[in-house]
């Protein structure tokens, strides 16, 4: 079911791909194609899905590129004690490059520390996927998404910490 759903999600934006699709750019000598890594992320989707937003261990990053009508949701599950990202998932509605960028990020962040993933740069993502200049903003979107997810988690954590601190004070006052 999830696979079907993810197929459907990923089914937008990319031209039909049983064979490698060639988009010929007028005036250029070489035909433009999706890089095989992009195609791979499309045909073999990994980490597509959702975590529970309300889960205190989950950070959700929700970003969009209004000019092309893209939305990207990236979620991380963090282990409280170690600060390590134990799992990640994404849901992206947009072009193949946007989907692949977010997919790549979910793969990269698994097992890393939160501070570490903040240093992921869109240029690395773009290089990994050989994104053409017109699609660089997709990698920027993915960078924004992971940063937003980390920020969300930390905000949640700070809130719950302040509630924990207030509660024992209250108990002491009641006692």
């Amino acid at each position, binding site marked *: 079911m999830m696979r079907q759903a993810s197929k*459907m999600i990923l089914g*937008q934006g990319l031209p039909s791909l049983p064979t490698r699709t060639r988009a010929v750019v007028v005036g250029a000598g070489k035909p433009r194609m999706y890089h095989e890594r992009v195609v791979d992320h499309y045909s073999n989707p990994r980490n597509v899905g959702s975590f529970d937003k309300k889960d205190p261990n989950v950070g959700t990053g*929700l*970003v969009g590129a209004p*000019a092309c009508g893209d*939305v990207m949701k990236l979620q991380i599950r963090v282990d409280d004690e170690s600060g390590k990202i134990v799992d990640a998932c994404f*849901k992206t*509605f947009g072009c193949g490059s946007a989907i692949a960028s977010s997919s790549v990020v979910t793969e990269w962040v698994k097992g890393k520390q939160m501070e570490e993933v903040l240093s992921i740069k869109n240029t690395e993502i773009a290089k990994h996927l050989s994104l053409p200049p017109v699609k660089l*903003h997709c990698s*920027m979107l993915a960078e924004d998404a992971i940063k937003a997810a980390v920020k969300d988690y930390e905000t949640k954590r700070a809130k719950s910490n302040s509630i924990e601190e207030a509660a024992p004070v209250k108990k002491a006052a009641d006692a």
Partner: protein
Amino acid sequence: MWKKKLYASTPLSTILLSTRILAKIHSPKHAPLLNPLLQISASCSPSPPPFVREIEVQFFPTSGGIFFGGPRFHKENFNLFVKKKNCFCSVSQSAEKLECWNCDAIADSPMPFLVCQACRSVQPVDHSIDYFQILGVERKYNIEVDKLEGKYKDWQKKLHPDLVHSKSQREREYAAEQSARVIDAYRTLTDPLSRAIYILKLENVVVDEEERITEPELLAEIMELREAVEEAESAQALNQIKAQIQGKMQYWCNSFEDALLNKNYEDAIASIQRMTYYKRANEEIIKKL
């Protein structure tokens, strides 16, 4: 492109100095243009001999502009350069006449100068003519879309590339470009979203292609919408969602118009962003149906 031509012929300095010009005006609407001439002759310093001569004056208003530009005044006399049949003033830069590259006829109608009236040859593209002018509608957001098709077809009857097979290479190129531009104009103005973006562009407000947003409410709503489209099982469910989207599009179109009238460009861009999202969702529904 149009050419600025100054025809230097018999200077009329001696003629006009203290005289009235008896001009035969060919159409009544050109009558107001006579006044500048009278003013000029009145301001000239008198000098012998008085001389009245009847000259034929043809006035050619340019599209949207006044033909009669300010003539140059010299200290003692002023020169009006006159050609035999056509009366051209030594024009200042503000008055630009559009001429056909083929037959040199002047553009004499209020319509945008895409095709010459006299010899029917297609003119080169003039980018200063915007899409609203080409399709003959007012430059505002709420235009009547039905009117566009008629005008569009009228233009294509005159400048479609198929009509110029036997003509010169130059004209065929002009026809290809002009025709493409008219098609562009029609497509841009029929679709509400592209019309909105185009209007803002004419006002020099550019919607940034690479901008990213993190508005949680908007994005969450769009996310839910897209997920609903994905998960919809039946055509009925899809049509329901489609109807909702239509409603929202209409709301944001109106919001855009209000923002535009108030020159509130931030709100206008926000409206465009939402319209883009809804349009994408709509496209997905259509794909699925």
